[in-house]
């Protein structure tokens, strides 16, 4: 729910990583700014601020979105999953473990975006081909790895998740 208040800021209620969250945002602020600057969720990164790099990707109502291209006020009454919600108290998500085991990160700044994107892929296609992984991840830029180890990490995680059911 979004309610404009006197200061020109808007009161927004939403759900982030399973928690009900309230925040105040200016209408011009992106969801990425809200996450990073107001809610302290800095795992989503700003790489371009216009939807070209995928470093800020989050899952919103089941859809993969660039948080920089969604307004904070648009998040009202939605369900958002960020990188901070991917691991559980019991441990890392298979994708996170697989990224570590496959040396699929170097500087690591694109990594949260890739993991969120890959998670969205595997939720709709648990058995992707290498081509499908590359196609799906073409919206995420990585300048360090040349992508090979990322693609292998996603394929390995997919296999593990299928095996574990």
């Amino acid at each position: 729910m979004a309610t404009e208040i006197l200061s020109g800021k808007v009161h927004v209620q939403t759900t982030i990583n399973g928690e009900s969250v309230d925040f105040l945002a200016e209408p011009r602020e992106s969801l990425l700014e809200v996450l990073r600057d107001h809610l302290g969720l800095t795992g989503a990164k700003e790489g371009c601020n216009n939807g070209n790099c995928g470093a800020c990707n989050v899952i919103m109502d089941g859809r993969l979105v660039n948080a920089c291209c969604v307004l904070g006020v648009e998040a009202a009454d939605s369900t958002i999953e960020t990188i901070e919600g991917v691991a559980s108290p019991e441990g890392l998500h298979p994708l996170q473990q697989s990224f570590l085991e496959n040396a699929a990160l170097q500087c690591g700044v694109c990594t949260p975006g890739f993991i969120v994107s890959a998670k969205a892929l595997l939720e709709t296609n648990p058995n992707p081909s290498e081509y499908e992984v590359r196609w799906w991840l073409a919206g995420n830029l990585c300048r360090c790895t040349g992508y090979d180890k990322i693609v292998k990490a996603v394929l390995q995680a997919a296999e593990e998740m299928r095996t574990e059911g």
Partner: protein
Amino acid sequence: MAVETRTGRTVKHHDNTYNVIGTTPIRHDGVEKVTGEALYGSDINLPGQFHGKVLRSPHAHARILSIDTSRAEALDGVHAVITGQDIPEPADKIISGGEGDGNLLKYKTENILARAKTHYHGHPVAAVAAISPHIAGQAVKLIDVTYEVLPAVLEVREAMAPDAPIIIEDLLTELDDQVISETPSNIAEKMVYETGDVDQGFEESDLIVDREFSFGVVHQGYIETHNATAHWLKDGNIHVWCSSQGAFSIRSELANILDHPITKIHVTPMEIGGGFGGKTTSYLEPLAALLSRKSGRPVKMNMDRDEVLKATGPTPGGYVRVKLGVTNAGIVKAGYAELAFDAGGFPGSVVGAGCKCVFAPYNMPNAKVVGYDVVVNKPKTHAYRAPGATHAEFASETVVDEICRELGLDPVEFRLQNSAKEGDWQLDEPPYARIGHIECVEAARDSDHWQTPLEQVPGKLRGRGIASGFWFNVGLTSSAIARLNSDGSVTLLEGSTDIGGTRTSVAMQFAETLGISVDDVFPIVADTDSVGQTDVTGGSRVTFATGIAAHDAANDMKQQIIAGLADLWEMSEDAITHRDGTFLTDGKSLTVREAALLLTDEEIFPVGRATVTPERVGGAFTTHIADVEVDGETGKVEILRYTAVQDAGVAIYPPYVEGQIQGGVVQGIGWALNEDYVYDDKGLLRNSSLLDYRMPTALDVPNIETIIVEVPNPGHPYGVRGVGEVPIVPPPAAVANAIHDATGLRLRDLPMSPARVQAALTSQNGDQT
């Protein structure tokens, strides 16, 4: 738990075996980087901080007639506005930054904030601090600047012409520290490197090929944009948090630029989201510091992508000519080259390094190379992965391919026959130490890729190319401090920003030396107050040089443990030896863990330390094979298969060596095929977004196959060679040679974009060789 997969294989030229080196532990900083918890520069927020924004020049070349900041200052929420007049008048002195490049402080300061003129589109003119980034952004638009727009010059050969618009009015050309121009020029420096008798060498040649090449501007394209947060305290202490390749470089630049005592500047390196040479200098740090002083609050600044592309330091565009003479038997006799590189808006390109690399893979008895550092109305260029080498060797490695075609020689055999080897000539460098170029070419020749013929499909234009690459690598200074904890674990402080897993590759060398598990080493990238002098993470130097510091610190700790045990056991230190992590003496044997417990119980706390400046660095070589398919209609080039063979000396952490190779190759493929700065006729950059500045995606490239060759580097205790930079060098030449194999066309201008390839395919006058 360890890294599970190796994607490539290793060809060893040594029999050394290790306990830790060559294994695949999970990197120490891994978990926080896959969970989003790692803090990069823009992830910190200080209480009460303001946000800074920069006003940038809308013109490529203009005189600043006046700046009126009053409307910006009047905006509610604005707390400070600064212009070039707020920076101390710079002295005429050289300061060091980046990969050892000297720079006049005056130019560096003017690049950070323009004084009288703007030299390129996006040049900073003023900066604002306000309570939010949006208000700061509004405020910069309220700064009124009157410009006198001047004619701009962007292309390097045009800028060298006698009638070109002069960008720096008192700039005279220097050669060998002597002024050689009588009137102001855009040519800041001319350099000449010569060995043997090049005229004689060409006379002895049966075939001489002489070609010209051109290059657009290419950006490093790190995903994290530049950022800095500064807090100028009332007592004059300045704290800075930033994502830089070198916290110590930022500290020294700030001391010079702000004319401030270095002991009062405290730089904390945050995690860094890529750099590739582009984050070895300061842009925002001095502005954030000045805005903090003026506003009295911490100030955080963050560039957007448009600013990064317009106004940080890309690699130069430019011009290269290569002339190579060989006998009919394919023996290289002489080489001549001219390189003219964009310095950008201020002097100081990487052309000198390019000059020294152009013929480096070959034993060249006679050579002359002339370089020009040229000021143009584009952003001040900076280092990008093996700076200068990719341009230079794109030219020489395609000329080599042309010679092989002309003489009917096998390009592998040509390279083996002429390869540089230990003891051979190196232009303006001492003779090569043990290097691995021949071993790389042999491993490429023996690879599955080279041994498997390229499948030809009717109607498709397919071809294969091969090219080698060389880069110097650098040593510089690194420090490490190691504390032995009571449980036998070690806290390892180092000064090298970890840009791709070097906490672990350095910790592994420490663990190997002391004889403990790498999981018992806790590496920390420390701030400038907490660890010894450490130069930038650049020049492929961290695993090499900081690795030596860790090795030496481990030996220092080992010696202190022996001294402590000798004291406790009341015996001579000579009676105690160390082997495989165990301290031995007559009848006694202690592991490091047992020794730590014993010593710390007696209030003995060993602290190993080392600061090193390696004197023998050793060069890096690589050989790449590319298969391409050229779309005859659109000119689009697809990479079908790619193999990179590289001498890593000894690979400390093989999957991350492969990762460096794969990343460098993909950057090189982007440079070869797509990446380019597009300027309009007014000198304004027209593709300053990641949509229009097109870097490769996962869909654009195949798996990059890797072969690690290990020819140990005699300059490192474990034989390490830096691996980070050289893999970017061969891709443009390997791809160009493959395009020639596919189409018969020689493309000599980068990028080999679809439009260029298509034009070459359809042109009646296509240069068919």
